[in-house]
C-alpha cells in the first residue's frame, strides 16, 4: 500500500498504541503546523486518550518525565515539537537519558523516544530551524533515527516505540510529509542500522539522509537525464547506528562521493561521513569528496536568504559534476 510520510507516522503511532499498553504519548503534536497531517493523528488521540498526556510547555521536564517513565517500565514517546526545542530539553536528553544505562552498569534500560520536527522548513528563521542531530551524535547512548522516506517514517517509528531498548531521538521533517512510498509484505524493512540504496548507480555515490534523500533522488534523475551520469543514492536512515559498511561499499563501486546533509557544514553529519571515507575509503576515491551542507550561519527568515543556504537538488547536481571533473 502506498502511504505518505505523515500517514506513516500516524499509522505507526496508532498501531504501536494498539500493540503495547506501555506505549504513552507525552504531548500530541507530532505533525507541527500541518492541519491535514494533524487530522491523521486524531484516531490515535481518540482511541487511546487515556495514554495521551496533556503537557505544559516544559520541554526539559517532559523529556525527563519520558525518561523516568521509561526506566520505570513504560515506553513513552515525548513530542518535543520543533527540532530547535531539543535544546530546551538538552540536559535531560544528553546528560540523563543517554547516560543512564551506562552509569547504572547495565542495570537500567531507557526505552524512550524523543520526537522532533527538525530542519529548514520555510521561514522558521534562526530559532525554529535547527537540525540538532549532529550535536546529539556527540552523546553516546542515544540512537538517532532520520527517516528520508514514508516507508521509514512508518517502520522506524514503529521500531522505536515497540522494539528499541535504548533512548532514541526520532528526527522528522515537515517538508517530507507529502513524500510517498510503498509499504507491506513485498517491501521488507532493512534492519535498523542498515542504510538503504534508494537508487543504484555506477559513477558517483550521493550519501543522504532525511530531507536530502528526496533531493538527492531528484538530483540523480537530473544527472542521468541531462549529463549521462549514473548516480547512486544512499539513504543513511539513522546516524546512530551508522552503516559505515554500506557507505564504503557504495564508494568502492563508484569511486566518487558527494555527501548531502542539512546540518551545518562544520562538525556535521557530512563531516563525519567524509572522515570515514578519508580513514577507510581513501583507496576507493578517484577524487576528493564534496560536502553539500548548510553554511555556518544562522538560518534567516526571508525566503531568498533561506534558499541561499538550503541544500537543494541543484547544489547536489553541481557537486556531483565537480567531483567527476565535469
Amino acid at each position: 500500500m502506498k502511504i505518505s510520510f505523515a500517514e506513516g507516522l500516524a499509522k505507526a503511532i496508532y498501531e504501536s498504541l494498539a500493540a503495547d499498553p506501555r506505549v504513552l504519548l507525552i504531548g500530541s503534536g507530532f505533525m507541527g503546523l500541518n492541519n491535514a497531517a494533524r487530522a491523521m493523528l486524531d484516531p490515535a488521540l481518540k482511541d487511546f486518550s487515556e495514554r495521551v498526556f496533556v503537557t505544559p510547555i516544559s520541554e526539559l521536564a517532559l523529556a525527563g518525565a519520558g525518561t523516568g517513565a521509561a526506566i520505570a517500565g513504560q515506553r513513552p514517546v515525548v513530542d518535543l515539537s520543533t527540532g530547535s526545542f531539543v535544546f530546551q530539553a538538552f540536559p535531560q536528553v544528553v546528560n540523563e537519558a543517554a547516560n543512564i544505562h551506562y552509569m547504572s552498569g547495565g542495570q537500567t534500560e531507557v526505552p524512550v523516544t524523543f520526537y522532533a520536527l527538525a530542519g529548514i522548513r520555510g521561514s522558521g528563521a534562526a530559532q525554529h530551524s535547527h537540525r540538532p542531530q549532529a550535536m546529539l551524535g556527540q552523546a553516546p547512548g542515544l540512537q538517532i533515527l532520520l527517516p528520508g522516506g514514508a516507508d521509514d517514517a512508518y517502520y522506524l517509528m514503529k521500531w522505536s516505540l515497540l522494539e528499541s531498548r535504548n533512548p532514541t531521538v526520532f528526527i522528522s521533517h515537515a517538508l517530507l510529509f507529502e513524500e510517498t512510498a510503498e509499504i507491506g509484505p513485498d517491501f521488507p524493512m532493512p534492519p535498523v542500522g542498515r542504510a538503504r540504496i534508494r537508487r543504484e548507480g555506477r559513477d558517483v555515490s550521493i550519501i543522504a539522509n532525511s530531507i536530502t534523500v528526496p533531493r538527492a533522488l531528484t538530483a540523480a534523475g537530473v544527472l542521468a537525464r541531462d549529463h549521462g551520469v549514473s548516480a547512486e543514492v544512499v539513504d543513511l536512515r539513522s546516524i546512530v547506528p551508522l552503516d559505515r559498511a554500506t557507505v564504503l561499499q557504495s564508494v568502492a563501486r563508484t569511486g566518487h562521493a558527494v555527501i548531502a546533509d542539512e546540518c551545518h557544514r562544520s562538525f556535521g553529519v557530512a563531516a563525519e561521513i567524509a572522515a570515514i571515507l578519508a580513514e577507510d575509503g581513501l583507496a576507493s576515491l578517484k577524487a576528493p569528496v564534496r560536502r553539500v551542507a548548510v553554511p555556518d550561519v544562522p538560518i534567516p527568515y526571508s525566503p531568498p536568504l533561506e534558499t541561499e543556504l538550503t541544500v537543494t537538488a541543484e547544489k547536489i547536481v553541481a557537486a556531483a559534476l565537480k567531483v567527476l571533473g565535469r
Partner: protein
Amino acid sequence: MQIVDPAQRVAAMLRIRRFEEQCIQLARAKRFAGHYHVYIGQEATAVAACAELGPDDFVFTTWRNHGHLLARGAAPGRMMAEILGKAGGYAGGRSGTLHLAVRELGIPATSALVGGSLPLATGAALACKRRGSGITVSFFGDAALEEGASYEAMIIAAVWRIPILFVCENNSIPPELRKRGQFTSSTLPTTRLADVPESLRIPTEVVDGADAGALADCFHRLVGEMRRDGGPRFLEVRCTRWPGSFPLWPELPCGEWQVAWAFDQKPDRPDLAVWLEQSDPLVLHIRALAAAGILDQRRIEEIDARVRAEIADAVRFALDSPFPAAAEAYRHVWATGEPIS
C-alpha cells in the same frame, strides 16, 4: 528497610553515619579521587522515608545519595566498592559515588545534576499511576530549587496528579555563616522553600530534620495519604549542615562520632558541640530514647559495635575488590549488549 523497633532506627541511622565516616577516611587516604558528598546529619530523613516504602516504590536521589541507598537496604560493601571504582561495585566502577543506583531496590537511576532527578522521578511516578501501584519519593537539596528543571517537574506533577513525594532536604548555610572557600550553598530569595510548590497548589509541609520521631510520623502520614489519594506532595526537611560538610571536601571534625557525645561527653570543637546539642538527629534521638528508658548507653554501644563491624566488612570487601578490566569501559553503552555504531 522496615523499622519495627527503636533499636532498628538507631542502627539504621548509625549505619549511614559510620559508612560516611569511612568514606571520608578512604578519600583522605586517597583510595578514590572524585569529589563526593556525605549524608551525615540528615540520616533521620532517609531512614524515616524508606521505612514507609515497599518493593513497588521508586526512590530518586542525588549526588548525596549514600544515606538513601543504605536506608533502602543497599549492600554497603557493593556501594563502597563502587565509590572506589571497583569491579565489585553496583555499576562495575562506571558510576562512582555520584550516580550510585540499585535497580532491584527501586533506585533505577541517580542523577548528579542539580535538579536533574526531579523530572525523572516525575516520570517514574507517572508509571506508578499507570500501573496502579507504588509511589515515587524524590529527594533533593535546597539548591535544586534554583534549577528550572525542578519547577517544570513540579508543574507536570501537579497537572498530572501523580503520586510523587518531593522531599527537599534543606541544608542551606544561612547567609551570615557563609565563607569563601566553603562548599556552595543555595542562594534563594525565600527561606521557606515550601513556598515554591505552594504557588503550584501542591500540598506542602515543613518538618525538622533533626527530629527522628517527627520525621517518622510525617512520612508515615504523607505516604499513607498518597497511597490512598495519590499526589503530589512536597516536604521541606529543615536540616542544619554538619560542620564537616562546610569545607570544599568533607572533613571529620574531632574524628569519628562517639556514642558518649549523646550522653556525658562533648567534643573539643565548639561548633561541633553546638551542632550535636541542637541539630544532630542521632544524638537527639538517642537522648529521647534514653530519657524514656527505652535504650541505655550500653545498649547503644552494642548496636554501634555491630554497625562498625558491618561497615568494616564493607570497607574490606571494597578494598579487596579488583579494579575493572580496561575493556569494561566499552560495555553497557547499549542495552542490546553489543556495539551498534
